[in-house]
């Protein structure tokens, strides 16, 4: 009967699987876990290879045996009645003991690896605190006094120890090419450490891996491994207060407001480092790190309005908008919120909205206009701000009374924020 086709089917599957497996090791899989870029992954992959070695043997043995039995013992017309056996103690003992022996070969390196990576990080490790939020990542470097969001810089060759906590529900921190994942949660502090030791600077995608609500899929981040020198430069830049272009040009509107603003900016500049720090060059970012999420239909901003955005006006607008209640910009004395991501060096980041969009003027403007449309339930606290937009959660139209912003005002704020390198 049809049983005869089975082996071919099986063979076809195995044949189809092999090239896929080979392809998996090549460069077109930018989030592959099969990398040699950290001590952690080398360890995990060593373990994987050991297991795959035995798995292949067991798989081939079992399936070949099965196929052989199906061929050899299929019913033939007029065939004899089968010889009756109902057990064989020696055989059964063999296939009980053999797997047990194989498991020893797997268990020993497993246990070694468990203890190696769970006995505390090396003393010289760089400390990074990761805090998961619905749905974005907060990264803090306590030694460097840095607070940033959604983009992580790691020096090559130095172990890094992550302390993982959550502000709300459980999240899971994962950069597949660098290490395994660890959960972040309230009331428990987790750790994870590894040493990125690739030769060249690289950029990676990271993601949340524990289901954390509506926008779980949109909780992504980026990690850059850079040289120690670049890292130091980056760290110095990030640790400093926001740099904001000095005093308004001569043509700036006169009056009390302008004066206060000027005074404030002067202070800001005085406290800030003179130059922005290192940032991973945009031109060197591999394509998979650049977000390609489409903009939702019906959400637009006119090019000319966007281009006309003025940073100085934006600064004023920002400083009296509802933004300051949730976001912090060190150097802007009115922007002190801590609920949302720290925006002090927003302009130095390459992505927006937890890795969902490229961080350019257009996306930032649309994000401010209607974040809840850009990212489902982006957050109950990041409101829809564009005048005339419909809030997808509240189902109401945003008006000036509700703190709505015109496209022009948004463009100004964007211009301001993009200066925060």
């Amino acid at each position: 009967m049809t049983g005869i086709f089975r082996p071919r089917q099986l063979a076809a599957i195995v044949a189809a699987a092999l090239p896929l497996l080979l392809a998996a090791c090549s460069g077109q899989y930018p989030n592959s876990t099969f990398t040699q870029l950290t001590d952690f992954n080398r360890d995990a992959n060593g373990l994987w290879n050991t297991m795959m070695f035995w798995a292949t043997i067991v798989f081939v043995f079992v399936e070949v045996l099965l196929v052989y039995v199906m061929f050899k013992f299929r019913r033939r017309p007029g065939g004899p009645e089968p010889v009756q056996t109902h057990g064989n103690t020696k055989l059964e003992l063999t296939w009980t003991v053999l797997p047990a022996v194989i498991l020893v070969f797997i268990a020993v390196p497993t246990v070694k690896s468990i203890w190696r990576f769970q006995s505390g990080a090396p003393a010289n490790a760089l400390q990074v605190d990761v805090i998961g939020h619905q749905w974005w990542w907060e990264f803090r470097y306590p030694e460097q006094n840095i607070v940033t969001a959604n983009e992580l810089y790691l020096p090559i060759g130095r172990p890094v120890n992550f302390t993982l906590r959550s502000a709300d529900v459980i999240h899971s921190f994962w950069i597949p090419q660098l290490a395994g994942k660890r959960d972040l949660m309230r009331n428990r502090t987790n750790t994870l450490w590894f040493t990125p030791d690739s030769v060249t600077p690289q950029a990676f995608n990271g993601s949340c891996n524990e289901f954390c609500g509506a926008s779980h899929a949109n909780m992504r981040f980026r990690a850059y491994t850079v040289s120690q020198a670049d890292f130091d430069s980056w760290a110095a830049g990030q640790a400093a207060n926001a740099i904001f272009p000095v005093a308004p040009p001569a043509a700036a509107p006169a009056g009390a407001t302008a004066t206060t603003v000027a005074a404030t900016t002067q202070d800001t500049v005085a406290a800030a480092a003179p130059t922005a720090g290192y940032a991973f060059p945009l031109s060197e970012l591999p394509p998979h790190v650049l977000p390609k999420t489409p903009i939702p239909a019906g959400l637009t901003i006119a090019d000319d309005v966007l281009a006309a955005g003025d940073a100085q006006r934006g600064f004023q607008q920002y400083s009296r908008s509802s933004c300051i209640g949730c976001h912090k910009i060190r150097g802007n004395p009115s922007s002190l919120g801590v609920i949302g991501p720290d925006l002090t060096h927003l302009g130095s980041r390459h992505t927006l909205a937890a890795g969902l969009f490229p961080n350019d003027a257009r996306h930032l403007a649309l994000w401010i206009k209607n974040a809840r449309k850009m990212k489902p339930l982006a957050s109950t606290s990041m409101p829809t701000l564009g005048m005339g937009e419909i809030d997808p959660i509240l189902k109401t139209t945003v008006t000036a009374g509700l703190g709505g912003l015109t496209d022009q005002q948004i463009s100004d704020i964007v211009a301001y924020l993009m200066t925060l390198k």
Partner: protein
Amino acid sequence: MANDHGSHASPDHAHEHPTWKQYKWVALILTVITAFEVWAYYVPALVASPFFVPMLLIMSAAKFVIVVMFYMHLKYDNRLFKALFTGPLIIAMATLIGLLFLLATHKAEGGIG
């Protein structure tokens, strides 16, 4: 009738039940242990000693076993019932101990500062 009686006298009834005398003694022992436990609770030196918790656990286990053996007549009943009870009890205790080991470590934090 005799047959009927015979079939009724199946193993779960064919054994000796404990008697009133035994019941009385069991009740007395339970009372004494309970009284001792409560007394121990009020002796600060005892409470502070490292034997306090093990002692209470042993006494409570003793009461547990006595009730199960005599009042639930597991001592006299069919072996099957012993298996039906002790099996799950062992799994339940192992689970309890495993959970305590795994979850004793969490710390309540006020929140993320």
